[in-house]
């Protein structure tokens, strides 16, 4: 059973054991429009919560993807570098960005759960 948490910058983190799969939400991809470029970190990079972990660019906007929690990047989704459209088509699935080995699970509680995030999104639009 996995648990998904959300940031105010529209990243999600799906927790599977001590690893979190990070990507941008469906709302974020819809706002960005067609994604044309993704820049991913090297596996092994240590990131702090809130620090820039990746970059995503659409035709009209470039955004940073921030690490939802602190930890070490253990894997990145190379597929979206060649096919950035995956981020639009399946943001929660094939369009994931990176996997982080979570340093402190307590940080997860500072993030929004599904219900809180949906409420946050409806206040954005």
């Amino acid at each position, binding site marked *: 059973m996995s648990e998904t948490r959300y940031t105010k910058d529209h990243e999600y983190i799906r927790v599977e054991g001590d690893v979190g799969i990070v990507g941008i939400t469906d709302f974020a991809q819809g706002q960005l429009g*067609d994604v044309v*470029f993704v820049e991913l970190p090297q596996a092994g990079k240590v990131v702090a919560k809130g620090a820039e972990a990746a970059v995503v660019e659409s*035709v*009209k*906007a470039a955004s940073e993807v921030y690490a939802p929690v602190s930890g070490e990047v253990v894997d990145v989704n190379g597929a979206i570098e060649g096919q*950035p459209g995956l981020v639009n088509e399946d943001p929660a699935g094939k369009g994931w960005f990176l996997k982080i080995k979570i340093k402190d699970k307590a940080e997860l509680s500072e993030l929004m759960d599904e219900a809180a995030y949906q409420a946050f999104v409806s206040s954005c639009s």
Partner: protein
Amino acid sequence: MLNNQGRPTTPKDSAVASHETFTRNRGLQMEEALLFEIGRTDVTGVDLDEPASFVSRLGHLAREEEIGLPGLSEPETMRHYVRLSQKNYAIDSGLYPLGSCTMKHNPRLNESMARLPGFSDIHPLQPQSTVQGALTLIEELAGWLMTLTNMDAVAMSPKAGAHGEYCGMAAIKAAIEAKGEGALRKVVLVPESAHGTNPATAAAIGFEVRSVPAGADGNVHPDAVRALMGPEVAAIMLTNPNTCGLFERQIVEIAQILHEGGGYFYCDGANFNAIVGKVRPGDLGIDAMHINLHKTFSTPHGGGGPGAGPVVLSSRLAPFAPVPFIKRDGDKLALVEDAIGTQALGRLTAFHGQMGMFVRALSYILSHGSDGLKQASEDAVLNANYVRARLADLMSLPFGNRPCMHEVLFDDAWLKDTGVTTLDFAKAMIDEGYHPMTMYFPLVVHGAMLIEPTESESLASLELFIMTLRDLAMSALRGEKTRFEGAPFYAPRRRLDETRAARAPVLRWTPPQPITDAQQAAE
């Protein structure tokens, strides 16, 4: 973060052509090929005798193949360039309501003055004793710019707005370093509604940018500035009137906060055209401001340039003005070109600035006079408010229906649930023969449409523009989506696929293959 302005990026299916003509011309709109596609290497417009003898001294470095420069006959050359010129939408061909860009009429008088041989046939490297008239003109224009702004000095050499920003911010950095605070003051405050060049300039100079949130009324508030002010702040970069088309009413208090905290006040003067003759920036506590001669003072703009961005400086920054500048010694004028032994910034350009634009700007200033300059500002504001008042019942104003300055900002709240976006609306304006307004800027407003009609438009011209927008607006509100989704229908090119252009860009020109009779028959 994100594309908060809601700009769509992919064309809808209806944005495809109905049928192509054989020539790809669309009636009298000529589909002009590139020079490399129509030129031939064996043709030239001029007859030159072959040299009697030709011996290359390049040895093994001599070129073995033709370089393939295209040639055309004289009539072909004329047609090529006339057709290209017809593709241009210019202020001379129609109303150009691009907000914050001030596409105003370029008076023909300016052009005749700039073509006087004493101004047009001189060279920057001529002895200064032979160009005293040109130097006098620069001195006189500089005097006017200082008078209109009530500032102590002006750097004439910057070549455009962003270059002027660089000059002003470099002067601020020099002043801070002269006070020994270079290591301390590293931060520049920039409001969210700023021109994109402002944070870019601050970053290019080496400052860290700190964003000042805009108030709900579209203005920058002193409390927001005060909260961000500290000993690490070098300056604020503020545009007044701002990009929401509003005058920053608390600008004097903002200046005081900066000055009391030991910082400087840079004003982006892109919108100075709204207040010339009405407000002097020096009276507001501004330390540096660039003036876009190509906006406020009617010199050509937007492909017809070049721009010119003189920077006025307060007494606190005057010693740091870059070289060269003009110094008067009795009857003689000379360019001071050496910064050694002074606090001057050094040099930003090769020579003294855009001489041709100086002539045009002074021609505009002198032909208008002090009363005319003031009236131009008033008329620019009046025209924008006329557009606002005539459209306010259909289109939505993000900060309420209150007076604006020289440009009026609408958002896309009124288009909600119509399926039509700001981008669609702009494309439909092209079908109607208008250059679109500025869209999706400023960033603080969703689906922004920023309209600046300028003082150049007559009431009749404004009315036609307004009636066109009203027709489009009512059409959108009636749900006539195809008029917008497929637009432009009548332009030389239909809607561009921005996504494909970014994902699969074609970066290399390849020669087109001529069509044979057999291929044509097969089609």
